[in-house]
């Protein structure tokens, strides 16, 4: 029994285990706050592997992944990056939001992500063969688009893909109850609210409410907040800054949780 709480949505645990067994890299897509990171942590514990998490950003260079020369009193020495560490010692290297990284950075993954499973380091001339327990996992959120951002097809096509979405209503309800300790009735209402907000598309709202936010509001309610207030602070204000959207979301919350003074 692992410590991290994770409730399976579909076949993702079996798929992950199978990919791990066959030494295949994995790509996880899904909207924010739907449980991608939690899933990796959970799998890491389940498979008894270390998880090296790198949150990608547009300034991330290949050196940040592979490693670089540092300096101490004896001169320069080589310091492994998180990717190299995982490749040498075994473990799950998890690159979160890989789409944010510059494309030339992710090219270093290519030789690791196919049958070769090696990591060449040109600075030291080393070619490291991956530890049998090494596994590469990347994730991104396909929601937002910029012309110049996006994954290279050649990178994308090296992974087994797993698409996450917000959990189904009954599963989500269970997660909320388990994570926050809120009662079933309130959890059901939160799930209903989420279901309605998720019907909005990108023309109205940038991204729908995440399970994470629902858990936050449930926690606030457990803490003693009035449910209307809790939802306003955790759900409504976090989702949008536009007056019309705020007005409508407020209306929706007040329909579910009657605003009391």
């Amino acid at each position: 029994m692992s410590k991290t709480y994770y409730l399976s949505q579909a076949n993702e645990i079996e798929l992950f285990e199978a990919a791990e067994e066959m030494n295949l890299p994995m790509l996880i897509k899904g909207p924010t706050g739907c449980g991608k990171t939690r899933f990796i942590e959970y799998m890491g514990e389940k498979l008894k592997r270390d998880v090296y998490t790198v949150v990608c950003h547009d300034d991330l260079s290949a050196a940040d992944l592979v490693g670089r020369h540092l300096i101490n009193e004896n001169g320069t020495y080589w310091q492994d990056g998180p990717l190299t560490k995982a490749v040498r010692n075994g473990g799950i290297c998890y690159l979160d939001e890989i789409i944010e990284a510059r494309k030339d950075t992710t090219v270093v993954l290519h030789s690791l992500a196919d049958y070769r499973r090696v990591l060449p380091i040109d600075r030291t001339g080393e070619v490291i063969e991956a530890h049998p327990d090494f596994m590469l996992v990347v994730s991104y959120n396909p929601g937002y688009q910029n012309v110049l951002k996006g994954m290279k097809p050649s990178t994308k096509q090296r992974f087994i893909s797993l698409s996450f979405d917000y959990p189904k209503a009954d599963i989500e309800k269970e997660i909320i109850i388990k994570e926050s300790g809120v009662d079933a009735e309130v959890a059901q209402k939160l799930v209903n609210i989420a279901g309605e907000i998720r019907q909005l598309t990108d023309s109205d709202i940038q991204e729908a409410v995440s399970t994470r936010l629902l858990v936050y509001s449930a926690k606030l309610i457990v803490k003693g907040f009035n449910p209307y207030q809790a939802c306003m602070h955790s759900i409504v204000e976090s989702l949008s800054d536009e007056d019309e959207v705020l007005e409508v979301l407020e209306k929706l919350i007040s329909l579910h949780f009657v605003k009391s003074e």
Partner: protein
Amino acid sequence: MFNILEFEENAGKGWEKYISKKADASYEDARVYFNSHSKSLKIFYHLMGGEQGKELHVTDKRFVKTSRSLLERISTSGSTFFLSWQDEKALYLPASVAYFPTKEQNEMLYFWLTAMAVQTSSHSGKLLAKNYYATQTLLQKYDGFRLFYEEALNQLVEHNERLSFVSALNMENLEDEIFLENLNEYPCPLWVYPPLGKNGTYSDFEDEVEPNRGDEEQQEKSETLEMKKQANKMDDKKETDGFLAFLPESIMSILEQVNVDRAEDDSFDEDALYNAEDLDEITLGQKSANLSARIKMDLELSPNFKEEYPLGDGKFLDEWDYSKQIYLKNYVKLKPYLVTNIEPIELEPRLKKMIKKIEGEIDLMELDRVKNNRLPYGDEINLDTWIDYKGHKNKSGHHQKFYESFERKTRDMSTLILADVSLSTEAGITQEVRIIDVIKDGLIVFAESLNRLNDKFAIYTFSSNKNTNVRFEIVKNFNEKYTDNTRGRIDAIKPGYYTRLGAAIRESTKILEKQKTENKLLLIISDGKPNDVDRYDGRYGIEDTKKSIIEARKLGITPFGITVDLESKDYLPYLFGKNGYTVVRDGKKLPKVLPEVYMNLTK
């Protein structure tokens, strides 16, 4: 100046105002208007699960045969109502409501009706049953609605006991005769009704018949009037005057016969439209247009003196039919062609200044590989800096910034510019400048800047005349160099017919897909909604266009819409997504805005 006639009129008006108020029982102080909430309501409609493509409009008055109270009969009110109703295209709500004493309640009524509209379309059955079950569903699910509804219904019944049948409804008596009679007795403001039936009263949901569906053609035209009128048809083919066009008992309402020519294509009488908004009833004549009008129509199609060279026999493309949810295979014929009799044109001096300025901005965007030295961290150690550091006597006081890193900024871009050159671009922005002129200027300026940036680009224009004839003109393809000839071809662009946007996007997608660059941008310059003379209008056109945009996205192409449409842009976010479009409010600024949009997109 005191005028006895005017006095009489004023007195009459005063009386009418007084007596209507007495009969109306509405709360003017708390009146809430649709327009101030339309955007929120639309979002709310989606929130409740309503269809994305549907629109929200203001409804028109509807005549309902009711038993009127004495007061109402005196005041002539109580026979027409602003009912909320919907058809497959849109949801129609009253322009304003004042049924309840507080603003909050009246505002809530709008939200209630919007939620009801979603619910009634998901429940089956007749009008009564639909509204009953929809109400029950909402009451059960939302505490907030329950509070509102109970209070609202009580207040309504208090004012008007003829509505008491609403609260008497329950699951067993839904089919009872007595309620069906009551239905025509007094319309319930809390309900959503089906479209107007043939006979002037409302039909039930089951047999939805749109007004005046005489023949297909006529029906199409009537859709240009965005609200539905109580429609009668009269036979005016015989040369009689319209003297008996109204019945004596309805003398209290205005009836006017305007010669609106609905059987003729596109002859648009603004006055008639204006009048139509004010009328209670529209009567359709069946007389066809007189000869002079027809001759005028023919003359409007200007002779084409462009020498065109067709490229191939034309291509067949699929089209998406949202009502059937299928692709119509090879439904559209698209004909690519090239204009050959063009003159090379040099850059016009009036554009030179603007281009100069944009080029300045472009030069600021440094695109070469940049090497940054003396960084606290980086990809490599810069040995010179390192040795410098090593040789320094006082190391502790020396900064340790001896890394260097490379930042490469290459732009692996192909851009296809697809310009809408439909007839509507002939319209003027000012007296001298037409939309098409602005689009041409925009294309030239943009082409100059793209050329400067060394980015690959192509320019195509399109217009259509039904699904069999979508014209796709090549101005510059990806391989051609940008020369004076390109400018000549841009200058030779002439407005065509209509805007079958979906087909044009599909063809552009095919072209872009073959480009080997990593980033592919499809810039769509247009001046309005997709439309064509056949059924490619309204929702059909929008859904097909939306589908074509999704197809492009799937292939890794980024579509971006640039619109010079000054009317409501409700459909734009639906088509392109929230961040996928921009609206150029001042059409004249298009040439300046185009390169800016591009640079922002590709920064």
